[in-house]
Structure formats: C-alpha cells, structure tokens
C-alpha cells in the first residue's frame, strides 16, 4: 500500500525543512564580509584553474556505457537471487548462460583495451 511509504514521506519533509531552515538561518544571521578569495569556487583547498566547461575525454563515455550495461545485468540478478534456492539447478544454469554471454563481452572489451585509460 502506498500509505506504507508515509514514514519516508515524513522523512523527506523533515530533511527538506531542515536544509531549508539551516540555510536560511545561517544566511540571515551570519556576518558577511565578501572578499575576492572568499567568492572563489571551493575546490578542496586547491586554487581553481582552467574553465569548468572543458571538453572531457571520450573515454568517460565508454566507461558510462559499460556501467549502464552491467547495471542492467545486475538488475536481472536481483529477482533471481531472491528465489535462488527454490530455482534449483536449472535456475543456476540459466543465470550461468546469461552471465556467460556478458562475460564474453567483458573479455572482448578487456582485450580491445576498453578498460585502459592510456
């Protein structure tokens, strides 16, 4: 029943309210003395350099695509794993075939250097 999610809804409301109140209060009550250094974007203490709108390498794209594919594979694992014991041997063999086909893809990507960064 959707009503079972009421606690989650309550939590969402509390979290949003907390964030909003904390930010509003600190911006209303905190002292404000802006200087050039303070207005710089915070980059883990490093001085920022270059444009944020640089073009990134196509390697990220390959990584993201591989991530999606294996992500989808894992989704299929979940309902199978819940029932793993009742599915006996045939369930294992079927999932084995499913994984084997993707494993071949994995070997292919590996040998083609899809995981190499340089």
């Amino acid at each position, binding site marked *: 029943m959707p009503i079972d999610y009421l606690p989650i809804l309550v939590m969402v409301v509390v979290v949003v309210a907390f964030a909003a109140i904390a930010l509003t209060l600190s911006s209303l009550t905190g002292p404000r003395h802006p200087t050039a250094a303070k207005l710089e974007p915070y980059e883990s203490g490093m001085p920022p350099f270059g444009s944020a709108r640089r073009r990134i390498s196509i390697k990220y794209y390959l990584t993201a695509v591989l991530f999606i594919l294996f992500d989808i594979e894992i989704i299929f694992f979940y309902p199978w794993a819940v029932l793993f014991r*009742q599915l006996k041997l*045939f369930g294992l063999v079927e999932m084995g075939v499913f994984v084997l086909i993707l494993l*071949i893809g994995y070997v292919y990507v590996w040998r083609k250097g899809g995981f190499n960064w340089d």
Partner: protein
Amino acid sequence: MPILVPDINLRIIAPALIVTVTAIVVLLGELVTPAERKRWLGYLSIAGLVVAAFAAFSLWGANASGFSGMVVADNFGLFLTLTIALSAALSILLSIPFIHAHEIDQGEYYVLLLASVAGMIVMATATDLIVIFLGLELLSLPLYILAAFQREDTRSLEAGIKYFLLGAFSSAFFLYGIALVFGATGTTNLAKIAASLAQSAGSPMLSIGVGLLMVGFAFKVALVPFHWWTPDVYDGAPTTVTAFMSVAVKAAAFGAFFRTFQFALPALALDWRAVAAVLAVLTMTLGNVAALLQSNVKRMLAYSSIAHAGYILIALVAMSANGLSSALFYLLAYTVTNLGAFGAVIALSDGARERLEIKDFAGAAREHPLVALALTICLLSLAGFPPFAGFVGKFLIFGAAVETGWAWLAVIGVLNSLVSVYFYLRPVVQMYMSEPAEGWSGIRVAPLVALALLIAVISVIALGVFPAPAIALAAGGLIR
C-alpha cells in the same frame, strides 16, 4: 509457491541458436585473428549461416512451439528464416571485398550482422509480443552500428544517428502498443490475444494499441508516411549494409507483422485491413513517384524498397492463405533480386570509389557486359517483367488481392508497376546506349562479388521460370 519447470525446447530455436553461437565464435576469433586474415571471419560467418539454414530445413513441418508459447517452428517462420539466412550469406559475400577496400575490415562487422540475423530469426518465429519486441531490438541495434560503420565518413555517421533516433522512436510506439494490447486483453501471447478477442468485444484501448503496433511495424518496413528515414539511411550507410537491411529487415518485420495481425487480430480485421489498404496505396505511389526523381542509384533503390513494401502490404490486406504464401514468395524474390542489383552496383565500383550516380553507369555494358547484364536482369525483375522472380511475386500478390475482393488495390499495384518501369530502365539505358564515361579501365570484379552476383541472378531466373517448388514451400506456411 510452486515453481514451474521451464519449457525448454532447444531444437525449435536451433537456427537462431546456431547463428548466435557463430556470432560469439567470430567475436572471440576477432581477438586472435591478425589483420590480414580477417576475411576468414567472414567465411566462418557464412558457414554458420549455412548450418543454420540446414537446421531450419530439418525442422520443416515440425510445427512445434516451445518456451511457454513464446516461439514456434512453423513453415511460415522457417521460410522466413531461410530467406534471412540467404540474404545474410549473400551480403557477407559482397561485404568481404567491400569492407577490405574501404579499410573497415574488422570482425565486429560480421558479429553485428550475425547478431542482427539472430534477432530477425527470433522476430520471424516469435508468437509473443514481448519476444517480437526483443527480436526487433536485437535486429535493429546492430544495424544502427553497421549503418555508422564507416566512421571516417560523416554521411555514414549521419545515417547511423538518423536510423538510431527514428528506430528508438518507433520502438517506443511499438512498446506503447504492446502495453495497451496487454491492458485490453491481459496477455502478450498471440494465441491468447486471439482467444480473448474471440470472446469479448473490442475497446478503444485495444484499437489504439493495435494502431500503435501498426505504426511500429510501419516504421521498420518503411511504409509511407513513416518512411522519412529510409532514403538518408540507405544512402549514407555502407552499400553492403544497405543491401542487407533493405531485404532482411523487411523479411523479419513483415513476418511478425503478418503473424500479429493475421493470426492474433482477425477480430479487428475490418478496421486494420482498411488502414493497411490506404497505407499500401500511399506507399506504392509515393515510393515509385519519388524514385522517378532520383539521380543516385542508392536513393533510387531506397525509394524502390519503399514501393515494394507497399506491394507486400497488399498481401496483408488480402488476409488469406494465398496472401500469406504470396508475401513469402515475394520476400524471397525481392531478397535475391535486390541483393543482385546492389551486388552489381558494388561490382561496378572502383575499389573504394563507388559509382553511385546513374550517369556514372554510362557505357558499362561495353566494359563489363556480364555485370551489366546481371544488373539489367535484376532491375527488370524489380520492375516486374517476366520471366523473372519479381513478375511471379507480383502476379501472386495481385492474384491474392483479386481473389479476396480487393481488385481495385491490385489495379493500383499494376499501375504503379508500370510507373516503376521508367526509373528501373534508366540505368539500363545508360549502360547500353551511352558512350563510356571516364575511368572504366582497370576495374576488376572481386571473385566473391561475382559469386554472389551469380547466385542472385540464377535465383532470379530460376524463381521466375520454375516458381512452383518455392511456391509450394511458401504455401505450407501454416500460421499459428
């Protein structure tokens, strides 16, 4: 909760299984094959397709279904399987020298082509909308990549992107249609849909769902007004890929189209037959008229393939056993004819430099009389001249339409065939009547291309002169 034991029947999916295993072996072979031996991966792929064809033949008459009613090995599906395997094997014969000349000879080409073939076979033998959808995706996805396989050529990339975007769009329509049909009937199984509709009246949800299914199929087989992607994709994709998808996709998608509509949705036939008749008229007419205006052979053949989809749709409108077998025969005839035409175009190209404008064909008959003759035979067959395969195909389809009371549709089909004669003969006139253009000297036809061309032309003539055996095979296609 009791758990059923799965209904595994590997025998009836043997053709698709063999193609899949071949694809995986070729993929692993690609990793260990040195660059100069890549052509062996092509030979291996053809061997796999031949074995798959034998497997399909050994299943002839089995009429078995399996995997909980998801797929069936009936003669209708097996005939299409054979057609698809033949088109793939001929395409690979054309491809081996072609991709070498264009410096794209990578094993992935064959792997993707075989994966697409596996999807086509699944689609042609599926009896459940979910499996039809997965077959559709499995045949389409590799073709998007293959269309863009000439990565150095921006037109090839454009073809890939256009095909992908419109293909994804049409998949969405198809999936929405499946959802609505499921909502209306409570099942995705074709037999159960038919049973459910035999008992209860239709609903708006069902009609809209069926309409969306039709839109999805119409996109894939390129029916007007869902054909806009076809000329650009066929033009930009590597010529061998164009040759393959112009025939094999039609065989697979029309197979599922016929099975879904004629078998699962006879209850709504009054509605969808009228819509299909309108689409057939639009598709034939627009395809042929637009083909008249083309100066590029690939674009002309693209519009011609749209027109041929219109002719095949007439067989669906007929909705009879003869309609079904005529469509099967037509798909086979169109496959060998169109592959022959593309094969001749590839044979006349000069290495990586292709001759794609019709005026470039001037004088080809003097330089390459046999190739010119082959192209002439294929174009005459496409136009529907006897004694070639295309004539018998059109004769059967128009006959099926007249038998079922759709004579006016057959008349429009005949008129369209007359229009098409003009543009099919234009390259022929160029080849035989014009003075040779520059640059013919030193062109050698690759032996594999010659072999593919020979097989295609012999089939075109054989199917035209002795059509009876093929018609008999097509007629056995009991649909279930």
